[in-house]
Protein backbone atom coordinates (compact mmCIF):
# COMPACT_ATOMS: atom_id res chain seq x y z
CA UNK A 1 0.00 0.00 0.00
CA UNK A 2 1.54 3.26 -1.07
CA UNK A 3 2.11 5.76 1.67
CA UNK A 4 0.12 8.96 1.08
CA UNK A 5 2.71 11.41 -0.08
CA UNK A 6 2.30 14.98 0.91
CA UNK A 7 2.97 17.28 -1.93
CA UNK A 8 5.84 19.70 -1.37
CA UNK A 9 3.48 22.66 -1.66
CA UNK A 10 1.15 21.61 1.12
CA UNK A 11 4.16 20.76 3.29
CA UNK A 12 5.78 24.12 2.62
CA UNK A 13 2.67 26.24 3.01
CA UNK A 14 2.07 26.13 6.77
CA UNK A 15 5.81 26.35 7.40
CA UNK A 16 6.17 29.51 5.35
CA UNK A 17 3.09 31.12 6.82
CA UNK A 18 4.42 30.31 10.28
CA UNK A 19 7.76 31.82 9.44
CA UNK A 20 6.32 35.03 8.07
CA UNK A 21 4.06 35.35 11.11
CA UNK A 22 7.07 34.98 13.38
CA UNK A 23 8.95 37.49 11.25
CA UNK A 24 6.04 39.92 11.47
CA UNK A 25 5.91 39.61 15.27
CA UNK A 26 9.66 40.16 15.57
CA UNK A 27 9.64 43.19 13.29
CA UNK A 28 6.60 44.67 15.03
CA UNK A 29 8.31 44.31 18.40
CA UNK A 30 11.49 45.85 16.99
CA UNK A 31 9.46 48.76 15.62
CA UNK A 32 7.82 49.32 18.99
CA UNK A 33 11.24 49.21 20.69
CA UNK A 34 12.58 51.83 18.27
CA UNK A 35 9.45 53.96 18.74
CA UNK A 36 9.79 53.89 22.52
CA UNK A 37 13.53 54.59 22.26
CA UNK A 38 12.86 57.59 20.03
CA UNK A 39 10.13 58.78 22.38
CA UNK A 40 12.49 58.50 25.34
CA UNK A 41 15.24 60.33 23.46
CA UNK A 42 17.66 57.41 23.35
CA UNK A 43 20.87 58.20 21.44
CA UNK A 44 20.71 55.37 18.87
CA UNK A 45 17.80 56.69 16.81
CA UNK A 46 19.83 59.63 15.52
CA UNK A 47 22.26 57.18 13.93
CA UNK A 48 19.33 55.36 12.28
CA UNK A 49 18.12 58.64 10.76
CA UNK A 50 21.62 59.52 9.61
CA UNK A 51 22.08 56.13 7.96
CA UNK A 52 18.71 56.45 6.22
CA UNK A 53 19.69 59.93 5.05
CA UNK A 54 22.97 58.64 3.62
CA UNK A 55 21.09 55.96 1.65
CA UNK A 56 18.02 57.92 0.60
CA UNK A 57 19.41 61.42 -0.06
CA UNK A 58 20.87 60.39 -3.44
CA UNK A 59 17.46 59.02 -4.44
CA UNK A 60 15.92 62.31 -3.41
CA UNK A 61 18.54 64.15 -5.43
CA UNK A 62 17.60 62.11 -8.51
CA UNK A 63 13.90 62.82 -8.13
CA UNK A 64 14.21 66.44 -7.09
CA UNK A 65 16.54 68.61 -9.16
CA UNK A 66 18.28 71.31 -7.16
CA UNK A 67 16.69 74.73 -7.28
CA UNK A 68 18.84 76.98 -9.45
CA UNK A 69 20.41 80.17 -8.16
CA UNK A 70 18.56 82.15 -10.81
CA UNK A 71 15.16 80.77 -9.90
CA UNK A 72 12.89 83.82 -9.44
CA UNK A 73 11.62 82.49 -6.09
CA UNK A 74 15.13 82.02 -4.76
CA UNK A 75 16.18 85.47 -5.95
CA UNK A 76 13.13 87.04 -4.34
CA UNK A 77 13.80 85.34 -1.01
CA UNK A 78 17.45 86.36 -1.16
CA UNK A 79 16.57 89.99 -1.86
CA UNK A 80 13.99 90.04 0.95
CA UNK A 81 16.51 88.58 3.40
CA UNK A 82 19.13 91.13 2.37
CA UNK A 83 16.61 93.96 2.79
CA UNK A 84 15.69 92.70 6.28
CA UNK A 85 19.37 92.53 7.24
CA UNK A 86 19.96 96.08 6.01
CA UNK A 87 16.90 97.30 7.91
CA UNK A 88 18.10 95.60 11.12
CA UNK A 89 21.55 97.11 10.73
CA UNK A 90 20.01 100.55 10.15
CA UNK A 91 17.93 100.18 13.32
CA UNK A 92 21.03 99.23 15.29
CA UNK A 93 23.01 102.12 13.84
CA UNK A 94 20.21 104.56 14.71
CA UNK A 95 20.08 103.23 18.27
CA UNK A 96 23.86 103.66 18.55
CA UNK A 97 23.60 107.25 17.28
CA UNK A 98 20.93 107.99 19.88
CA UNK A 99 23.20 106.51 22.56
CA UNK A 100 26.07 108.74 21.38
CA UNK A 101 23.83 111.80 21.75
CA UNK A 102 22.41 110.83 25.16
CA UNK A 103 23.43 113.01 28.13
CA UNK A 104 24.64 109.89 29.98
CA UNK A 105 27.48 109.33 27.50
CA UNK A 106 28.41 112.96 26.86
CA UNK A 107 32.15 113.31 27.35
CA UNK A 108 32.36 109.83 28.84
CA UNK A 109 34.01 106.68 27.58
CA UNK A 110 31.73 103.69 27.16
CA UNK A 111 31.79 100.21 25.67
CA UNK A 112 28.86 99.71 23.26
CA UNK A 113 27.07 96.38 23.48
CA UNK A 114 23.84 94.68 22.51
CA UNK A 115 21.51 92.72 24.70
CA UNK A 116 21.75 89.09 23.61
CA UNK A 117 19.76 87.26 26.31
CA UNK A 118 17.06 88.06 28.82
CA UNK A 119 16.81 86.20 32.09
CA UNK A 120 13.74 84.86 33.78
CA UNK A 121 11.21 87.59 34.49
CA UNK A 122 10.77 88.55 38.12
CA UNK A 123 7.63 90.03 39.64
CA UNK A 124 8.14 93.26 37.69
CA UNK A 125 9.52 92.09 34.37
CA UNK A 126 13.00 90.88 33.53
CA UNK A 127 15.64 91.39 36.20
CA UNK A 128 18.81 90.32 34.39
CA UNK A 129 20.05 90.51 30.82
CA UNK A 130 23.22 89.38 29.12
CA UNK A 131 25.16 91.74 26.85
CA UNK A 132 27.68 90.80 24.18
CA UNK A 133 30.66 92.58 25.72
CA UNK A 134 32.86 91.13 28.45
CA UNK A 135 36.13 91.45 30.29
CA UNK A 136 38.14 91.39 27.04
CA UNK A 137 36.22 94.50 26.00
CA UNK A 138 37.03 96.27 29.25
CA UNK A 139 33.76 95.51 31.03
CA UNK A 140 34.19 95.03 34.79
CA UNK A 141 31.84 94.15 37.61
CA UNK A 142 29.93 97.11 39.09
CA UNK A 143 29.99 99.26 36.00
CA UNK A 144 26.87 101.24 35.13
CA UNK A 145 25.01 100.28 31.96
CA UNK A 146 23.00 102.95 30.14
CA UNK A 147 21.06 103.36 26.94
CA UNK A 148 19.78 106.44 25.14
CA UNK A 149 16.97 106.88 27.68
CA UNK A 150 18.93 106.56 30.93
CA UNK A 151 20.24 104.06 33.43
CA UNK A 152 19.69 100.39 32.54
CA UNK A 153 21.43 98.67 35.45
CA UNK A 154 24.79 97.51 36.68
CA UNK A 155 27.15 94.73 35.65
CA UNK A 156 27.07 91.89 38.17
CA UNK A 157 28.96 89.11 36.39
CA UNK A 158 31.57 89.13 33.64
CA UNK A 159 32.94 86.47 31.33
CA UNK A 160 35.52 87.06 28.56
CA UNK A 161 33.02 88.04 25.86
CA UNK A 162 29.71 88.56 27.68
CA UNK A 163 28.49 90.16 30.87
CA UNK A 164 25.35 89.92 32.99
CA UNK A 165 23.52 93.09 33.90
CA UNK A 166 21.15 93.50 36.81
CA UNK A 167 18.36 95.79 35.68
CA UNK A 168 16.87 98.78 37.47
CA UNK A 169 13.82 97.46 39.29
CA UNK A 170 15.43 94.18 40.31
CA UNK A 171 14.61 93.11 43.84
CA UNK A 172 18.02 93.78 45.37
CA UNK A 173 19.24 96.80 43.41
CA UNK A 174 19.25 100.10 45.28
CA UNK A 175 20.47 103.34 43.77
CA UNK A 176 21.24 106.53 45.64
CA UNK A 177 19.55 109.38 43.80
CA UNK A 178 18.83 113.08 43.71
CA UNK A 179 15.29 114.07 42.83
CA UNK A 180 13.76 117.34 41.74
CA UNK A 181 15.15 120.28 43.71
CA UNK A 182 17.90 118.31 45.39
CA UNK A 183 15.98 115.83 47.51
CA UNK A 184 18.34 112.96 48.32
CA UNK A 185 17.10 109.43 48.61
CA UNK A 186 17.36 105.92 47.33
CA UNK A 187 15.45 104.12 44.61
CA UNK A 188 14.66 100.44 44.85
CA UNK A 189 12.24 97.94 43.42
CA UNK A 190 8.55 98.82 43.54
CA UNK A 191 8.01 96.14 46.15
CA UNK A 192 10.17 97.90 48.76
CA UNK A 193 8.91 100.59 51.08
CA UNK A 194 5.69 100.85 53.05
CA UNK A 195 3.47 100.89 49.98
CA UNK A 196 3.68 98.75 46.86
CA UNK A 197 3.93 100.71 43.65
CA UNK A 198 2.12 100.02 40.41
CA UNK A 199 3.65 97.26 38.27
CA UNK A 200 6.86 98.39 36.58
CA UNK A 201 7.34 101.37 38.88
CA UNK A 202 10.14 101.96 41.39
CA UNK A 203 10.00 103.26 44.97
CA UNK A 204 11.86 106.44 45.92
CA UNK A 205 12.60 106.71 49.64
CA UNK A 206 13.94 110.18 50.53
CA UNK A 207 16.43 110.43 53.39
CA UNK A 208 14.49 113.31 54.87
CA UNK A 209 11.25 115.16 54.38
CA UNK A 210 11.51 117.27 51.29
CA UNK A 211 9.51 118.73 48.51
CA UNK A 212 8.86 116.00 46.02
CA UNK A 213 6.32 116.61 43.33
CA UNK A 214 4.91 114.92 40.28
CA UNK A 215 7.23 115.10 37.29
CA UNK A 216 10.49 115.54 39.21
CA UNK A 217 13.40 113.98 37.36
CA UNK A 218 15.33 111.41 39.37
CA UNK A 219 19.06 111.09 38.62
CA UNK A 220 21.89 109.16 40.22
CA UNK A 221 23.82 110.83 42.98
CA UNK A 222 27.08 109.23 41.94
CA UNK A 223 29.21 106.77 43.84
CA UNK A 224 32.74 106.70 45.20
CA UNK A 225 35.15 106.75 42.23
CA UNK A 226 32.18 106.56 39.91
CA UNK A 227 31.62 102.90 40.73
CA UNK A 228 29.03 101.71 40.11
CA UNK A 229 27.20 104.92 39.24
CA UNK A 230 28.48 108.12 37.74
CA UNK A 231 26.47 111.18 38.80
CA UNK A 232 23.62 112.48 36.71
CA UNK A 233 22.34 109.30 35.04
CA UNK A 234 18.59 109.47 34.53
CA UNK A 235 16.73 106.88 36.58
CA UNK A 236 13.14 108.02 36.06
CA UNK A 237 10.48 110.57 36.88
CA UNK A 238 8.32 110.90 39.98
CA UNK A 239 4.77 109.90 39.11
CA UNK A 240 3.06 109.82 42.46
CA UNK A 241 3.96 111.12 45.93
CA UNK A 242 2.64 109.19 48.86
CA UNK A 243 0.95 111.92 50.88
CA UNK A 244 0.45 109.96 54.10
CA UNK A 245 0.84 112.63 56.81
CA UNK A 246 1.68 109.97 59.39
CA UNK A 247 4.73 108.80 57.48
CA UNK A 248 8.00 110.25 58.69
CA UNK A 249 9.34 110.46 55.15
CA UNK A 250 6.77 110.15 52.38
CA UNK A 251 7.83 107.74 49.64
CA UNK A 252 7.15 108.28 45.95
CA UNK A 253 6.55 106.14 42.90
CA UNK A 254 9.05 106.54 40.08
CA UNK A 255 8.48 105.54 36.46
CA UNK A 256 11.79 104.18 35.12
CA UNK A 257 13.39 106.17 32.33
CA UNK A 258 14.31 102.96 30.53
CA UNK A 259 11.82 100.39 29.28
CA UNK A 260 13.67 97.24 30.28
CA UNK A 261 11.43 95.08 28.10
CA UNK A 262 12.69 96.63 24.85
CA UNK A 263 16.42 96.86 25.45
CA UNK A 264 18.75 96.64 22.48
CA UNK A 265 21.87 98.79 22.16
CA UNK A 266 23.41 99.73 25.52
CA UNK A 267 26.69 101.23 26.69
CA UNK A 268 28.84 100.18 29.64
CA UNK A 269 30.30 103.35 31.14
CA UNK A 270 34.00 103.39 31.91
CA UNK A 271 34.56 105.63 34.93
CA UNK A 272 37.61 107.86 34.84
CA UNK A 273 39.14 108.69 38.20
CA UNK A 274 40.07 112.32 38.87
CA UNK A 275 43.71 113.13 38.37
CA UNK A 276 43.70 116.91 38.63
CA UNK A 277 43.01 118.38 42.12
CA UNK A 278 40.23 120.92 42.26
CA UNK A 279 41.28 124.53 42.68
CA UNK A 280 39.55 126.39 45.53
CA UNK A 281 37.07 129.06 44.51
CA UNK A 282 36.64 132.53 45.90
CA UNK A 283 33.30 134.25 46.29
CA UNK A 284 33.02 137.64 44.63
CA UNK A 285 29.85 138.87 46.37
Amino acid at each position, binding site marked *: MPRPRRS*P*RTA*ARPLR*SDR*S*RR*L*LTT*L*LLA*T*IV*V*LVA*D*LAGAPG*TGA*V*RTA*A*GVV*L*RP*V*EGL*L*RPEVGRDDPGVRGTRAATAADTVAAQATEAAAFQRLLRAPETRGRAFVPARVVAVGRAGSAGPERVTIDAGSRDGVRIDRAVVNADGLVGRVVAVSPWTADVQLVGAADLTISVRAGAGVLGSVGSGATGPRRQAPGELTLTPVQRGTLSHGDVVTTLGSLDGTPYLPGLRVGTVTEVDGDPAALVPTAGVRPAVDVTTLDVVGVLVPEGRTVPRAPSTGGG
Partner: protein
Amino acid sequence: MTTTAHLAAGAGRVRLVRGAALVVLAVLAVAVGARTPLLLPDLVLPLVVAGALVGGPTRGALLGLGAGWVVDLVPPGSALLGTAALTYAVCGLLAGAGRREGLASWRWVAVVGVLCSTVLLGGGAIVALLAGSALSPADTVVRLVLTALLCALTVPALVRAEQQLRARS
Protein backbone atom coordinates in the same frame (compact mmCIF):
# COMPACT_ATOMS: atom_id res chain seq x y z
CA MET B 1 11.42 24.47 -13.55
CA THR B 2 9.01 23.14 -10.98
CA THR B 3 5.86 24.99 -9.95
CA THR B 4 7.42 25.98 -6.61
CA ALA B 5 10.45 27.44 -8.27
CA HIS B 6 8.19 29.29 -10.72
CA LEU B 7 6.19 30.69 -7.86
CA ALA B 8 9.31 31.68 -5.93
CA ALA B 9 10.78 33.46 -8.95
CA GLY B 10 7.52 35.31 -9.55
CA ALA B 11 7.26 36.31 -5.88
CA GLY B 12 10.89 37.49 -5.88
CA ARG B 13 10.32 39.67 -8.90
CA VAL B 14 7.12 41.10 -7.41
CA ARG B 15 8.98 41.85 -4.17
CA LEU B 16 11.77 43.64 -6.01
CA VAL B 17 9.46 45.76 -8.16
CA ARG B 18 7.28 46.55 -5.17
CA GLY B 19 10.25 47.58 -2.99
CA ALA B 20 11.65 49.88 -5.67
CA ALA B 21 8.21 51.41 -6.28
CA LEU B 22 7.76 51.95 -2.53
CA VAL B 23 11.04 53.84 -2.18
CA VAL B 24 10.39 55.91 -5.31
CA LEU B 25 6.86 56.80 -4.22
CA ALA B 26 7.88 57.66 -0.65
CA VAL B 27 10.67 59.93 -1.91
CA LEU B 28 8.37 61.39 -4.56
CA ALA B 29 5.77 62.24 -1.93
CA VAL B 30 8.39 64.16 0.05
CA ALA B 31 9.86 65.83 -3.03
CA VAL B 32 6.52 66.91 -4.49
CA GLY B 33 5.17 67.88 -1.07
CA ALA B 34 8.09 70.26 -0.61
CA ARG B 35 7.37 71.95 -3.95
CA THR B 36 3.65 72.50 -3.89
CA PRO B 37 1.27 74.03 -1.37
CA LEU B 38 -1.47 71.68 -2.55
CA LEU B 39 -2.67 68.81 -0.39
CA LEU B 40 -1.52 65.50 -1.79
CA PRO B 41 -3.01 62.04 -1.30
CA ASP B 42 -0.86 59.37 0.30
CA LEU B 43 1.05 57.81 -2.59
CA VAL B 44 2.33 54.74 -0.75
CA LEU B 45 -0.94 53.39 0.59
CA PRO B 46 -2.33 52.04 -2.75
CA LEU B 47 0.74 49.80 -3.12
CA VAL B 48 0.31 48.46 0.41
CA VAL B 49 -3.41 47.85 -0.08
CA ALA B 50 -2.88 46.12 -3.42
CA GLY B 51 -0.10 43.92 -2.03
CA ALA B 52 -2.14 43.01 1.01
CA LEU B 53 -5.23 42.21 -1.07
CA VAL B 54 -3.15 39.68 -2.97
CA GLY B 55 -0.99 38.38 -0.13
CA GLY B 56 -3.31 38.19 2.86
CA PRO B 57 -3.11 39.63 6.38
CA THR B 58 0.38 38.50 7.47
CA ARG B 59 2.07 39.44 4.20
CA GLY B 60 0.02 42.62 4.13
CA ALA B 61 1.13 43.62 7.61
CA LEU B 62 4.76 42.84 6.73
CA LEU B 63 4.49 44.88 3.56
CA GLY B 64 2.85 47.73 5.46
CA LEU B 65 5.54 47.63 8.11
CA GLY B 66 8.29 47.82 5.50
CA ALA B 67 6.56 50.60 3.56
CA GLY B 68 5.95 52.51 6.79
CA TRP B 69 9.62 52.24 7.70
CA VAL B 70 10.57 53.69 4.32
CA VAL B 71 8.12 56.56 4.90
CA ASP B 72 9.53 56.99 8.43
CA LEU B 73 13.10 57.15 7.21
CA VAL B 74 12.92 59.22 4.00
CA PRO B 75 14.52 62.52 5.02
CA PRO B 76 13.34 64.60 6.83
CA GLY B 77 11.63 61.54 8.36
CA SER B 78 8.83 61.25 10.89
CA ALA B 79 8.89 63.14 14.14
CA LEU B 80 8.79 59.78 15.90
CA LEU B 81 10.44 56.83 14.20
CA GLY B 82 8.13 53.85 13.87
CA THR B 83 4.78 55.64 13.95
CA ALA B 84 4.23 55.43 10.20
CA ALA B 85 5.50 51.83 10.22
CA LEU B 86 2.92 50.76 12.78
CA THR B 87 0.09 52.67 11.06
CA TYR B 88 0.85 51.19 7.65
CA ALA B 89 1.20 47.74 9.24
CA VAL B 90 -2.34 48.06 10.60
CA CYS B 91 -3.52 49.15 7.14
CA GLY B 92 -1.81 46.13 5.55
CA LEU B 93 -3.33 43.79 8.11
CA LEU B 94 -6.78 45.25 7.49
CA ALA B 95 -6.49 45.12 3.71
CA GLY B 96 -5.09 41.59 3.91
CA ALA B 97 -8.11 40.52 5.91
CA GLY B 98 -10.17 41.68 2.94
CA ARG B 99 -8.54 39.22 0.54
CA ARG B 100 -11.05 37.32 -1.61
CA GLU B 101 -10.45 34.34 -3.86
CA GLY B 102 -10.31 35.13 -7.53
CA LEU B 103 -10.76 38.56 -8.99
CA ALA B 104 -12.12 40.93 -6.36
CA SER B 105 -14.90 43.22 -7.43
CA TRP B 106 -14.11 46.86 -8.00
CA ARG B 107 -16.57 47.90 -5.29
CA TRP B 108 -14.98 45.67 -2.67
CA VAL B 109 -11.54 47.00 -3.46
CA ALA B 110 -12.86 50.55 -3.14
CA VAL B 111 -14.39 49.77 0.27
CA VAL B 112 -11.08 48.33 1.50
CA GLY B 113 -9.25 51.38 0.14
CA VAL B 114 -11.54 53.79 1.95
CA LEU B 115 -11.19 51.84 5.20
CA CYS B 116 -7.41 51.79 4.95
CA SER B 117 -7.25 55.52 4.12
CA THR B 118 -9.36 56.23 7.18
CA VAL B 119 -7.08 54.11 9.37
CA LEU B 120 -3.96 55.75 7.95
CA LEU B 121 -5.09 59.36 8.22
CA GLY B 122 -6.85 58.73 11.54
CA GLY B 123 -3.71 57.10 12.91
CA GLY B 124 -1.64 60.04 11.75
CA ALA B 125 -4.08 62.45 13.39
CA ILE B 126 -3.99 60.50 16.67
CA VAL B 127 -0.19 60.50 16.65
CA ALA B 128 -0.19 64.26 15.99
CA LEU B 129 -2.64 64.83 18.83
CA LEU B 130 -0.62 62.68 21.25
CA ALA B 131 2.62 64.39 20.23
CA GLY B 132 0.99 67.78 20.72
CA SER B 133 1.78 68.97 17.19
CA ALA B 134 -0.48 71.13 15.06
CA LEU B 135 -3.35 69.33 13.37
CA SER B 136 -5.76 70.75 10.83
CA PRO B 137 -8.97 68.67 10.76
CA ALA B 138 -10.08 70.13 7.40
CA ASP B 139 -6.75 69.25 5.75
CA THR B 140 -6.91 65.75 7.21
CA VAL B 141 -10.39 65.20 5.81
CA VAL B 142 -9.39 66.48 2.37
CA ARG B 143 -6.33 64.23 2.33
CA LEU B 144 -8.50 61.31 3.43
CA VAL B 145 -10.88 61.87 0.54
CA LEU B 146 -7.99 62.23 -1.92
CA THR B 147 -6.26 59.10 -0.63
CA ALA B 148 -9.48 57.07 -0.74
CA LEU B 149 -10.08 58.24 -4.32
CA LEU B 150 -6.55 57.37 -5.32
CA CYS B 151 -6.93 53.90 -3.75
CA ALA B 152 -10.23 53.29 -5.49
CA LEU B 153 -8.76 54.32 -8.84
CA THR B 154 -5.38 52.60 -8.72
CA VAL B 155 -5.69 49.54 -6.46
CA PRO B 156 -7.67 47.36 -8.97
CA ALA B 157 -5.06 48.04 -11.64
CA LEU B 158 -2.23 47.38 -9.20
CA VAL B 159 -3.82 44.08 -8.09
CA ARG B 160 -4.16 42.98 -11.69
CA ALA B 161 -0.59 43.99 -12.50
CA GLU B 162 0.70 42.09 -9.50
CA GLN B 163 -1.21 38.95 -10.43
CA GLN B 164 0.11 39.15 -13.97
CA LEU B 165 3.67 39.70 -12.78
CA ARG B 166 3.33 36.70 -10.50
CA ALA B 167 1.85 34.46 -13.21
CA ARG B 168 4.31 35.43 -15.94
CA SER B 169 7.49 33.43 -15.27
